[in-house]
């Protein structure tokens, strides 16, 4: 189905691994810190889904935009969200990337093209269109990626956005991370289409159905879709099949997830699998990969300590950033 047969080269595969390592280790730390009681926040673990943004973001520059969702910290870390400011934000501190006003569901960092994180299912897509429209008008060659989950393909905003992107030929790539659950409810109970990628047919755009746990497959689909967008040929829909190792929100009992299916998914964890593949192929040594992991672990630990030692925001911040000008109490 893909037009290009260009897989990632060795250097790119290593870069994908680096990003996966950062994402995985950061998720583990987040769950550890929440469990320890040092941090209170709604946390939507993305463990198991790291391949998708890692393999997509290596095709993007800092100037390209992304819009993502509440389960989207992996998307943003892969795009370059700085660790210290991320941790300070999710700890609600004044030093956070959004001054503690957004939190884990509304992280933003335009410097790296991270424009919107929404807590509303489906809402990343209409806004991604607007960013893509801006690029089309400015002819600046930027591409916008809208990340969302399988559940979001059932909300009206998805259909409105794909239709508009198609008729306007917008440089946007819609990336559905299909983890089989919309909140607590399984895919087959909520979604009429056998494959979400098939929904692209209604909107006259290419639809790629790929193994979201296979870095080469995600990379190839992303590259084709991103090249197409950059060339002014219009949008694409990528459905990347993956699995969420934890419940909808961290702390839920995930009783709705079949334990056998879940265990099988965890047993097939793409992270150790890709890691072993890189070593077996001779692309990297155990020591090299361990050094990458140790390096990130230290940075994440440092970011956590920085965040927890940072001051909380001044209550006066309630009057700032509501509008451009400060408002009265």
């Amino acid at each position: 189905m893909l037009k290009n047969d260009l897989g990632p080269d060795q250097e790119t595969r290593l870069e994908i691994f680096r990003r996966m390592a950062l994402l995985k280790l950061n998720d583990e730390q987040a769950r550890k810190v929440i469990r320890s009681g040092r941090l209170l926040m709604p946390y939507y673990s993305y463990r198991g889904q790291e391949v998708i943004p890692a393999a997509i973001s290596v095709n993007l520059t800092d100037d390209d935009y992304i819009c993502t969702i509440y389960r989207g910290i992996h998307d943003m870390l892969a795009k370059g969200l700085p660790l210290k400011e991320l941790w300070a934000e999710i700890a609600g501190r004044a030093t956070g990337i959004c001054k503690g006003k957004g939190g884990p569901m509304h992280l933003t960092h335009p410097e790296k093209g991270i424009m919107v994180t929404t807590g509303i299912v489906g809402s990343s897509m209409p806004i991604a269109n607007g960013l893509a429209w801006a690029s089309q008008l400015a002819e600046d060659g930027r591409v916008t990626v809208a990340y969302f989950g399988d559940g979001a393909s059932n909300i009206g905003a998805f259909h409105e956005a794909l239709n508009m992107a198609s008729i306007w030929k917008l440089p946007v790539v819609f990336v559905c991370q299909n983890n089989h659950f919309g909140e607590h409810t399984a895919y087959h109970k909520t979604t009429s289409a056998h494959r979400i990628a098939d929904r692209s047919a209604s909107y006259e755009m290419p639809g790629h159905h790929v193994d979201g746990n296979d870095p080469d497959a995600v990379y190839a689909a992303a590259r084709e879709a991103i090249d197409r967008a950059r060339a002014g040929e219009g949008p694409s829909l990528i459905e990347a099949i993956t699995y969420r190792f934890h419940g909808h929100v961290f702390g839920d009992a995930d009783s709705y997830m079949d334990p056998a299916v879940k265990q099988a998914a965890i047993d097939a964890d793409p992270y150790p699998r890709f890691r072993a593949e890189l070593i077996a192929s001779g692309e990297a040594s155990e020591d090299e990969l361990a050094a990458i992991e140790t390096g990130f672990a230290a940075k994440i630990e440092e970011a956590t300590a920085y965040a927890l030692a940072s001051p909380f925001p001044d209550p006066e911040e309630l009057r700032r950033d509501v509008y451009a000008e400060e408002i009265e109490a």
Partner: protein
Amino acid sequence: MSTIEAKVPAADQAARAVTMIEAINRALTDAMEENDKVLVLGEDVADPEDGGIVGITRGLSTRFGEKRVKSTPISEQAILGAAIGASMAGWRPVAEIMLMNFTTVAMDMIVNHAAKLRFMSGGQTSVPIVVRTMTGAGISSGGQHSDHLEAWFAHTAGLRVVTPATPHDAYGLLLSCIDDPDPCIFVENILTFGHKGVLPAKGMRIPLGKANVMRGGSDVTIVAMSRMSIEAVAAAEIAQQQGVSCEVVDLRTVSPWDEAAVLESVAKTKRLLIVHEGVKRFGIGAEIAATVSRELFGTLTKPVERLGGAFAPVPFSRTLEAAFVPDAARIAQAAVILAG
């Protein structure tokens, strides 16, 4: 009234008067001419689609091209999403949501995103969009094409809500909305579309948040907005015949509203009547009444009075519709009672 209007002789004024529709069209034209970042999008807005259902955007796409003036699918979430995203990247979109009731299918984009992105990002992003929308009871459009929903938007931090009453104000206020760094909801009353008035000088802005004393008076202050300000001026004439002098303060902007101007007027008249077309219960008038009652508790000689839409969907039948919405006669009656 503005000094510009006051200086022009009456005959010249009549000759130069334009309708509300033309006033809005001219503001959009002038804004697009001034700043090539200004965009217009919405259902039917381009000329091949007749420049909008009442022709407000007529001529724009012919003059500025269909890249900048885009007719859209009937997809309110997609329209506002496109406006929001483009504005975050430096453009100045003016999105038309044809009728105010249609904003309800895109409230997520307005309330959760346009209004909040600046705050939630800690000031890193902003959404300088204008949402133009028309509405109004009085032409038998029924329950889903007539609501004045200003109070919903005024209740949302991060939005500005602008309600012009005259062509003059619509022109100057719309230009201010387009300049504004934050999202503005610009409410056009359909029943005022045929009203004529003289425009301010080309490019002249009317600042947001500043009320306008449309008529001076000494016994009762009538605070109103949108078409009700026109009704209030007519009511003031009726009340005058009964010996009651009314000062009419047109808010122009509902959020932020001009507390200082209202308090100044009420401090003088000691009596306040608030009139709006939106439903009275939990409406804009309640907020104004609470503020005035607190600030001028010892000055008021009567409790603050309010007139507004009935607590019912806007009805179809013209007799019911007339009962739903305040008019000059009922405003005058309320003012005379308040003065007594």
